[in-house]
């Protein structure tokens, strides 16, 4: 299994990469870690004429703290995020998400930018990005623009990226003190992808829930925010009963997927159960 014949370019800067996209249009594909793209090319599910390898562009990887947020370069690998002391301390949910992707070899190569741009409906990061209210930054010929993660995922493998844009970074607000976050999933046995993955954050104040963030992946055509669950929790005490009642709304607003791994009904049930588990654990972490 080898990819079809293809030309290969390696731009030295982000600007140069955007120019190449402008020049070559739909014949070209960006290559980051290659851990979604290369399997597709090997199976000949896609045959671009040109690969634009952005994997070596300096300044596009790594994490910095800025204005109470972690700014993560698109090329930062899953391993780097999972093992970063900064992320583990400031935003444990994100490190926990990255650490559950695939296996160690996949985490060594795969990048957050590649994962988000690929928008696999069963990918893990999208749920975390939505729960954490992250901003996704896209750089194109006219410069950079950013958007909230929940508006970025439009469907299976479909995002708000238009034309010659490159996902250049992600801005993740640091959760306030008094909050707890969790990512957990029912994983496919072989690949580890999420049949249902739930990212939940809870911020407590005076013993009640001030705010909740719930992002769910694997269940519908695109990762989504469980608005009904979040609304149902606001102002309540984080008791097991309140959490269970709220979690029952986890799949209210979506049409669950149906495939080899799970029926639509089972996915709906998984969404409720795993949302309940995630919230209960988030409440524990918020208290400690």
């Amino acid at each position, binding site marked *: *299994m*080898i*990819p*079809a*014949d*293809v*030309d*290969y370019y*390696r731009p030295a800067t982000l600007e140069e990469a955007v120019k190449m996209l402008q020049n070559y249009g739909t014949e070209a594909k960006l*290559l980051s870690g*290659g*851990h979604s793209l*290369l*399997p597709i*090319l*090997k199976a000949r599910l896609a045959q671009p004429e040109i*690969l634009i*390898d952005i*994997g070596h562009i300096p300044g596009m990887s790594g994490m910095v703290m800025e204005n109470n947020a972690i700014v993560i370069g698109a090329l930062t690998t899953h*391993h780097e995020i999972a*093992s970063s002391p900064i992320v583990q301390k400031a935003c444990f949910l994100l490190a926990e998400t990255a650490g559950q992707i*695939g*296996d*160690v*070899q*996949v985490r*060594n*190569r795969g990048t957050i930018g590649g994962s988000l741009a690929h928008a696999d409906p069963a990918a893990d990061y999208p749920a975390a990005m939505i729960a954490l209210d992250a901003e996704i930054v896209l750089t194109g010929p006219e410069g950079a623009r950013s958007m909230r993660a929940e508006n970025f995922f439009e469907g299976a493998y479909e995002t708000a990226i238009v034309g010659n844009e490159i996902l250049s970074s992600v801005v993740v607000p640091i959760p306030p003190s008094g909050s707890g976050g969790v990512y957990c999933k029912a994983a496919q046995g*072989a*690949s*580890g992808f999420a049949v249902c993955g739930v990212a939940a954050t809870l911020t407590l104040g005076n013993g009640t829930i001030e705010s909740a963030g719930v992002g769910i992946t694997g269940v519908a055509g695109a990762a989504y925010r469980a608005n009904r669950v979040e609304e149902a929790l606001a102002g309540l005490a984080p008791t097991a009963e309140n959490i269970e009642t709220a979690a029952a709304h986890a799949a209210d607003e979506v049409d669950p997927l149906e495939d080899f791994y799970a029926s639509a009904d089972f996915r709906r049930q998984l969404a409720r159960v795993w949302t309940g588990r995630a919230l209960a654990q988030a409440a524990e972490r918020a208290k400690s």
Partner: protein
Amino acid sequence: MEISLSINGGVRSFDVEPRTLLVHLLRDEAGLTGTHIACETTTCGACTVLMDGQAVKSCTVLAVQADGAEVTTIEGLAENGKLHPLQEQFWEKHGLQCGFCTPGMILTAAQLLERNSDPSEEEIRHGIEGNLCRCTGYEHIVDAIQAAAADMKK
């Protein structure tokens, strides 16, 4: 396309098609057939090598992506004819039967011990998730990695 990379300590240059996979470069061009290829779909880990110290599945890396990198294959693990403690302990503890998964398994284990010199059994099992073995049932592999970790601390 001209690329050059360090393989087991020696820098070598190759003229490759961009679509060439790293595993084929290593096996067919560099003649290092210790890197095995099985599933070809990023699942089994038999093709695992170290690239700049990180375990990667070489069936899912283009050779051109490894341009300038330092690659270590199973052939490069022994030093001056002395087997690596992992190689010794896979031998000692029967960490292999057919041996097909072994080169990849050992390189993944080498990185695991690099990142965590004293892993628990659970951490070892989690760490070799990306490497499948159809023979051993993993018990002896875990034993071998634990024993090698102890040896390396001496």
